[in-house]
């Protein structure tokens, strides 16, 4: 069987089948997992550090950890949820050591609001940067909860599954995070 045929066959598999194939020794199955989830993982990482270089390093680290830990993946949760969990843990560990270096925002390029004038876009960009700086000051679990709820638009149930704990705890974390952000943004 040719490599391209193997790759094509693997691409047709669902995540659980890919994991089983990888655990059975088919290393190229892991390449398919990386290709399938790299964008989502990169976006989670980028939201934590707000610059490409660090996000790229973190994304690599997430998949290296996944490579080592995938044998323990039992399939109780979706692979994407499991990778989210790995990504959040990697990001929290890294950003606990180094506060993120936030890239200057280019609102004209990144803000999706086509009817706003230039002044409004700059003001909006500054406000977004303030919000990011405030988020960076949150305790790790609150920061992760905000990232997953607001930026990844995950439900409280999904967040509880990723961060470990109850739905009530996830909601309480988010509530306290909003309260802390309010105080920080007002000051």
């Amino acid at each position, binding site marked *: 069987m040719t490599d391209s045929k193997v790759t094509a066959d693997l691409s047709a598999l669902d995540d659980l089948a890919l994991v089983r194939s990888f655990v059975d020794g088919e290393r190229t199955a892991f*390449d398919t997992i*990386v*290709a399938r989830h*790299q*964008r989502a993982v*990169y*976006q989670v990482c*980028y*939201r934590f550090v707000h610059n*490409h270089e660090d*996000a*790229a390093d973190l*994304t*690599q*680290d997430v*998949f*290296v950890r996944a*490579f*080592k830990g995938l044998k323990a993946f039992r399939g109780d949760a979706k692979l994407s949820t499991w990778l989210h969990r790995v990504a959040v843990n990697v990001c929290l560990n890294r950003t606990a050591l180094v506060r993120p270096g936030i890239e200057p*925002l280019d*609102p004209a*390029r*990144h*803000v*999706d*609001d086509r009817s706003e004038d230039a002044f409004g876009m700059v003001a*909006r960009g500054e*406000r*977004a940067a*303030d*919000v*990011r700086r405030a*988020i960076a000051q949150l305790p790790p679990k609150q920061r992760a909860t*905000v990232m997953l709820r*607001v*930026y990844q638009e995950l439900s409280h149930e999904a967040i509880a599954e990723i961060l470990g704990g109850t739905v*009530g705890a996830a*909601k*309480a974390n*988010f*509530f306290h995070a*909003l309260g802390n*952000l*309010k105080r920080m*943004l007002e000051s």
Partner: protein
Amino acid sequence: MTTHLTDDERLDALEGTVDAARSAHLHDCAACRREVADLRQVWDGLMVDARTEVPEPPPMFWDQLQVRVGSAVDTRTAAWWMGARGWMSLAAAAAMLLLVVSWGARQRTPVADVVVSQADAAIETEAIGDTAQQFVSDVLASLEDEAVHEVLRPATGAFDDALATLSASEREAFARLLQAELTEGSE
């Protein structure tokens, strides 16, 4: 008058999932409306940042990521094996040392037709064992660390070959000596 909304319910109100009864309270209670409005202000600020898209990484990034992950996995696996191999070499060296010491003691143990008391035999064996141990220590001390590894690394099947040359009774005696050495070492 009903009780004010709990933190959990305020969050539900913010997210539009609060039940009808509590929604009615919210409609009538200015304090709760103010609390929810404060949360909404923070939420809106978060959404300003959330609407900024994650910038697309350089075009080659996605292709390079798989290679980077693969290299990182291989490098870390190789490092692990180097460490493990070092420990295995040490274990093999220790086993070889034990073999040499035990074998030396066995070779010089008085033959059966010489009548020696058990106490004397023990003293003699110990003395000869010390001599053999000293000899091995002297040789090892004269070698560099890497050379020690090379010298003490047994060839594949060396132990099996050596054991194959022994008679049944010699193997039993060898096993007893090893057992005695191991027992002594663990005390």
